[in-house]
C-alpha cells in the first residue's frame, strides 16, 4: 500500500505548466506520476473510431494467429486465381518437369496454371481469364487452403 502524506498542498503550479504544454504541443494527453502525486491533463477529445478487428488483435494476448494477414486485395486491376480445394500446390506436372507457367508468361483462359493435389487426386487449376502472370502466391509443394489466392493475373484489355 502506498504511503500517503495528506498534508502537502496540491501542485497547482505544475498543473499549469502541464496545461500549457498540452496546449502548445498538440498532444492528446500528458500524465505524470511521482510517488503519490499524479497529474493528468487531457486535450479535448477527438471523435473516436473503432474497428473490431484491431480491437481483438490488441485484446487477446498470446493467441498467435489472431491477426490473420489477409491476402493482399486485388488492387490495380489484378485478378486472383484461387484454390478450389484444400491440398498441395504443384507448379509442374511431375517432379523434374517444367513448371506450367512463370511470371511474365501470357496465358489464355482455360490454360492449366498448376496442380493442387488432394487425396491423391491431381486437380488441374486453369486460368479463368486470359492475361499475364504477374505473381505466383503459393510455394511449390506447400499446402493451400480453400479459396487461397495462387496467382495474380493481369487480364488482357478487352
Amino acid at each position, binding site marked *: 500500500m502506498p504511503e500517503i502524506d495528506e498534508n502537502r498542498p496540491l501542485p497547482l503550479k505544475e498543473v499549469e505548466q502541464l496545461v500549457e504544454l498540452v496546449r502548445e504541443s498538440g498532444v492528446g494527453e500528458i500524465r505524470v506520476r511521482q510517488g503519490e502525486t499524479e497529474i493528468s491533463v487531457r486535450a479535448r477529445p477527438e471523435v473516436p473510431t473503432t474497428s*473490431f478487428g484491431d480491437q*481483438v488483435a490488441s485484446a487477446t494476448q498470446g493467441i498467435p494467429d489472431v491477426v490473420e494477414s489477409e491476402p493482399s486485395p486485388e488492387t490495380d486491376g489484378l485478378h486472383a486465381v484461387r484454390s478450389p480445394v484444400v*491440398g498441395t500446390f504443384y507448379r509442374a506436372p511431375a517432379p523434374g518437369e517444367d513448371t506450367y507457367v512463370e511470371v511474365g508468361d501470357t496465358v489464355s483462359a482455360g490454360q492449366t496454371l498448376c496442380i493442387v493435389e488432394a487425396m491423391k487426386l491431381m486437380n488441374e487449376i486453369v486460368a479463368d481469364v486470359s492475361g499475364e502472370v504477374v505473381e505466383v502466391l503459393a510455394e511449390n509443394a506447400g499446402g493451400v487452403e*480453400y479459396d487461397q489466392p495462387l496467382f495474380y493475373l493481369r487480364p488482357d484489355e478487352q
Partner: protein
Amino acid sequence: MIGKVLVANRGEIALRIIRACRELGVRSVAVYSTADRDSLHHELADESVCIGPPPAASSYLNVPAIISAAELTGADAVHPGYGFLAENARFAEICERVGLTFVGPSSRTIARMGDKAEAREAAAEAGVPVTPGSDGSCESVDVVKRVGAEIGYPLVIKASAGGGGKGMRVVETEAEVDAAYLGASREAGANFGDGSVYVEKYLENLRHVEVQVLADSYGETVTFPERDCSVQRRYQKLIEESPAPGLPVDVREGLMAASADLVGSLGYEGAGTVEFVYADGKFYFIEMNTRLQVEHPVTEMISGVDIVAEQLKVVSGERLEVPEDARSPDGHAIEFRINAEDPLRNFLPQAGLVEVYNPPGGPGVRVDSHLYAGYRVPPYYDSLLAKLIVHARDRGSSIRRGLRALDEFAVSGMETTLPLHLAVLEDEEFRRGGVTTRFLADRELESEGGLLRLNRTSV
C-alpha cells in the same frame, strides 16, 4: 499423448475441443468454411485451414477437404464433435485407412449402433431391456401386424437408419398399419437411403433419460449418473439435467449397470451415450449415440470429470482417470440451450449480427459459446448460440441459479430461446420435476409484459 488434433467441427463444440487440447498440451487445428472466417474456433486454434464454401456439404461434411487439411497440417487425430461427421462410419473408416486416429469408437461400432434395429438387438443380447417390439427390421406389413397382435397397440414404426423423428409413424389400430408402414418406409428411404423399418410398443407419458459412458482400451468402463432430457421440442432437446429428478436410486443403478453391460459387450472405446425411455418405474433402451453429446457438460459439472480430455486420453492409449466418487452425483446441474430461434414465431431460426453479448458469471455458472459482440451468426448451420450450465447443491438451488443466470444473460441482435427457458423454470410442473417428453407439446407460449409464460393446453 497424441500430438495434434484436427477439430472437424465449428461453433461452441469446436471451442470445447480446442480448450481441452490446450489444457492437455495437444496442438489443435481448426477447419472452417468461408462463412466462418470471423469465428472464434478459427481464432483460438493453434492452426486453421479454410476447407470450403458456406454449405456444410462442401465444408464441414467435405471429407476429402478435411482429410487433406489433416495431412497438410500433420494432425495425427481427428475429433468430429457432434453432428456433421460424428456418427458417419464411412468417415471413421477413411480416417482409420489413412492412419488418422478418429476420436471415437471404431467404424464398425459406429455402423452397428447407427442401425437402430441392429442396436436394439445388440442391447437385447447384452441383457438390456428394450421396448417390446420386433426382432430387428420388419421385412413386411405382416411382421408388423404379428408384433401388434402379440404386444398390443399403439405401436410406433421407426426407420432402422433413422433418428430425429424422420420415417416414424404411430399406429393406433391394426387397420392403420398398411398405410403407416408404407409411409414410414418411403420417408426412411428418402431421408437415409435405406427404407427398412422396425416396430416398437408406443409408450406415452415417458421420460427421456440417458447414461454417459466412457471406456478405455484396457477394458475399463465408467458409467455416470443419468441425465434427464425430457424437455424437448420436436425431438430436439432444450433442457437437460442431472441427476433425473425423483428417480429412485435402484433405477439409477439399473440404468448404469445396463449401460455398462451394453458397452462391455460391444468392446466399446471412448465416450458414448446410452439412451432410454423411462415410465412407470421401468426403463427401456432406445438407442446409443457413439459420440460426444451437446449435453455432456451436465455430467461434467456433477462429476468433476473432463469428458473431452478423457476422450483424448483414451485414443492416446492411456487409461481413464475417473475417481470413484465421480460415479455418484455431486449436486445438481441443468443445461439450457440458447438457440437463435424466435419462440414466438414457431422457433423461426435467426441469423445476423450479435450486437450485445454479455454472458452471466459468478458461482456455479458455466457458459460454452462461440459468440462475441460483433459476431455475425451465419444462416448456414445449426442455431445453437450458447450453452448455459448451472450447478448447485440441489435441484431447487440449481433452478434458482438458472433463473438468475438466464436473467443476466445479455444477447441482442436476434431473438433467442432465453425467455423460453425462463418460462420453463417458472412452470410449476417443471419445478416439481419428472415431466415427460410431452411437456412442451402440451403447452402454449404466451407473451405477457415482455416475458413469456407457458400455459397448459391439454390435460
